[in-house]
């Protein structure tokens, strides 16, 4: 376990957001929480990069938004994957796996 939260690999935030939403629609804080929980605190995403990413994904047609009541009965903006977003996630996951595999092979060969 790493003590300090590490910064995200460039360009992976979008993929992580899509992945978190694959199960169910969430609001902004929920997404941040989920990422932190699942990564066991390795990744902490701050609002400053999270919200621009939401805008980006929404504009690209990967996310849908809806204002809903939270479990605490407050109004919040919920994000959900669109069909397009789901496809994008699959493609990204596959591509990520390919890259990770390649990188691992390279690192193993060197050591």
């Amino acid at each position, binding site marked *: 376990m790493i003590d300090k939260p590490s910064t995200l690999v460039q360009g992976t935030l979008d993929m992580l957001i899509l992945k978190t939403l694959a199960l169910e629609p969430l*609001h*902004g*804080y*929920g997404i*941040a*929480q989920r990422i932190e929980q699942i990564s066991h605190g390795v990744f902490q995403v*701050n*609002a*400053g*990069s999270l*919200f*621009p990413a939401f*805008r*980006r994904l*929404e*504009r*690209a*047609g990967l996310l849908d938004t809806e204002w809903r009541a*939270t479990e*605490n009965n*407050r*109004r*919040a*903006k919920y994000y959900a994957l669109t069909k*397009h977003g789901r496809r994008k996630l699959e493609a990204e996951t596959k591509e990520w796996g390919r890259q990770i595999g390649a990188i691992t092979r390279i690192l193993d060969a060197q050591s």
Partner: protein
Amino acid sequence: MPLMRNLIAGLQALFRKQKANSELDEELRGYLDAATAQKMKNGMSREEARRSARVEMGSPDRVREEVHSAEWESVVETFWQDVRFAARMLRKSPGFTTVAVLTLALGIGANTALFSVVNGVLLNPLPYPHPGQLVTIHESKPNFATGSISYPNFLDWQRDNHTLSAMAVSRPTSFALTGLGEAEQAQAEFVTSDFFPILGVKPVIGRIFVRADDQRGAAPVALISGGFWKRKFGSAPDIVGKTLNLDGRGYTIVGVIPSDFDLLLGNFSPSEIYVPMVQWTNNLLFSRGAGLGIHGIGRMKPGVTIDQVRADFAQVTRNLAVAYPDSDKATGAAFFPFRQSMLGHVEPFLLVLFCAVGFVLLIACVNIANLLLARSTGRSREFAVRAALGAGKSRLIRQLLTESILLASLGGAIGLLLANWGTRAALDSLPASLPRAAEVGIDPRVLLFTAAVALSAGILFGLAPAIRISRTILQDNLKEGGRGASGSRTGAHGVLVVVETALALVLLTGAGLMLRSLVRLWDVDPGFNPSNVVTFGLSLPTSMWKASPAAIRAAFREVDSKLASTPGIEAVSMNWGAFPLSGDDEWLFWPEGQPKPANQSDMKWTLEYVVDPGYLKVMETPLRSGRFFTARDDEHSPPVVLVDDVFVRQYFPNENPLGKHLFLDSLEGNQQAEIIGVVAHVKQWGLDTDDTEHLRAQLYFPFMQLPDSVMAGAPLGMRVVVRSRGSGAGAVDSIRQSLQQLNSGNVMYGVQTMDEVISSSIANRWFSMILLSAFAGLALLLSNIGIYGVIAYLVGQQTREIGIRMALGAQRRDVFRLILGNGVKMALLGIAIGVAAAFGLTRLMAGMLYGVSATDPLTFVFVAVVLMLVALAACYIPARRAMRVDPMVALRYE
């Protein structure tokens, strides 16, 4: 789709910014609440949880800013902010803005105008299908590289070649048109049947000519132009089959040609009537050696190059030379791409002018850059404040560039208006020789060009001040208060002044060379005195057309004596054959004492002027020796001729030509004529080009001695030249009256003064010179303003320095010399660079010059001196002002 959605969302955000912001705010609040709730669940107190959540999320403003800057519309927004700020800045200094915008409008307007001409004339594709396949065709002979094609040769070329899909010949003419209202002389063109198909012209109604119309003995048919159809027949649809009476002969109208048809070649002007070539009643039409002013066009087969065509025709003409050595021994075919024939003569003029306006715009840009530099010094404090408040360097540069591009856009918009108006005005005053002038206008390409020019101008003149500003930001200008030491600043300004002076010098040199060429041309002795001479065409009443030769001669004698006795008229002459600067005609001859050459190719050529005894008095061509014709040299007396200096030099070197005889092959019966006098050479081919032509020998023959067969054609149309006591134009009315008194059937047409003939022969040069001079004048004015502005500005900046110098004992004279010296140094450097540049560039216009070399030292020196004087004058006022600086005031002010 995503792009579309992105666009729509962006636009929504732009226009409903309030809503978008409040939504984001609510979302952020929700985020904060959720985070707080979570932390409280984890055991923090409410206060603690709240604070910790705040720290984690960061300032909502920053988040908002980051969201905002991730979206494209924020770029639009900053841009819009910049534009509004720039507009405010420009409004704040209306004087500067007006000067800058007007200067740019002039520069961009001139460029747009000239580009629209270049675009319409040179860049737009020719208005014919597959224009690249079109060629022009001429016959090359010893005396003429692009001579007239004889009709029999044309027929054989057409039959024997393998590389052209079609070829046709044409020749302008005119017909006396009768039976449709008042008798008139109608502009017409002889053509062969493939003429219109080659150019892709379809008849508006009826049909065009077919091969059968080309056959000898075919029934006379005619095509008319749409304009003529409307004018004479009110565009009546039943036109086909009607009869036209041309030169007293009935032609059946078979169709109508579109009214906008034009061939766009120099020797072609749109006609009202088109008639098959075989209908020409000229006896020489079927003579293989005749030069009748017939030229051709052709269409190459797809995939064939012009070199293949040339090779093909080399074979064809070689065969003809063997078959007809008498006429074709030294005859070939000459081909040129259609575009080159059409535009070859205007291209260099237009390109030189285009360069010139480019230079003017550059100078305008330099001037504005200077103004902006001066302003930027004044504004350095403003920028220092903005930099201190967190504006980045690139942000400041972007804002400055927005300002200059806004200026350029304003200038461009006004320039476009100026160009639109100016192009029309310029084209209306244009010599008729500019082809395709009707196609010149503002089109999308011109708009694009103007936008590009304005944008690059804006960047060009905006960049220097922007760089300067960004550099000064690094220094702490807040403290210095923008006072600034003057030393380094002279640098940028000085460079601009030098550039400006050099550009102006190049332009002035170009204009100077053109001017010198024209002066040289005006000084050229044309061999006659053009003032008070008027020339026109005359056709006798139709009743005379079938008259006997004796009656025709009598009628012309009557015209001659009637005009000669008209008040205000000094002398009159008929003219047939060649006429200076207008039309040429040649005769074949051989000198006495030699056997008749076996074939025409071995005979000598001469230009021939068929005239009356009054001709010498009309034209005032100097008589070198012998005598001119008299009334007694008539049809009953032995033929006589005069020849010119060149003729004597060429054919009778070191001999006295008087009393010698010539055999004139072109006149029936090989008439032998005695040389009775020698006159001065006349510039037949043009004031500028005559010296370099091959065929320059000239011969004069008495009109009354023309053989009867030739005389029979005279009533259809003769040229008349008249010398009047007052101006030629003023005499036209009394001439017309006299001719009408004689017979109301006389038709007078094509009236021109001889001065007009001369000026239209150099109209192209004249026009280019005027434009080039106008641009050079503009350049001089702009650069002068620039120099003045810079020197005045520098004096303003140096006030303190001058004050100190004076306080330390410098004399006013020294200060004056210092300031003037500054200006002179810059001007001299600019002149030196300009001379070097002009030395290289004026070579490009060598083809446009006459009698003066492209590196004419006199012009160069003169222009340099003028520019130096102008620069001195521009420095004088600021230097005077500097001289009067009161040291006390200057120092206290600081």
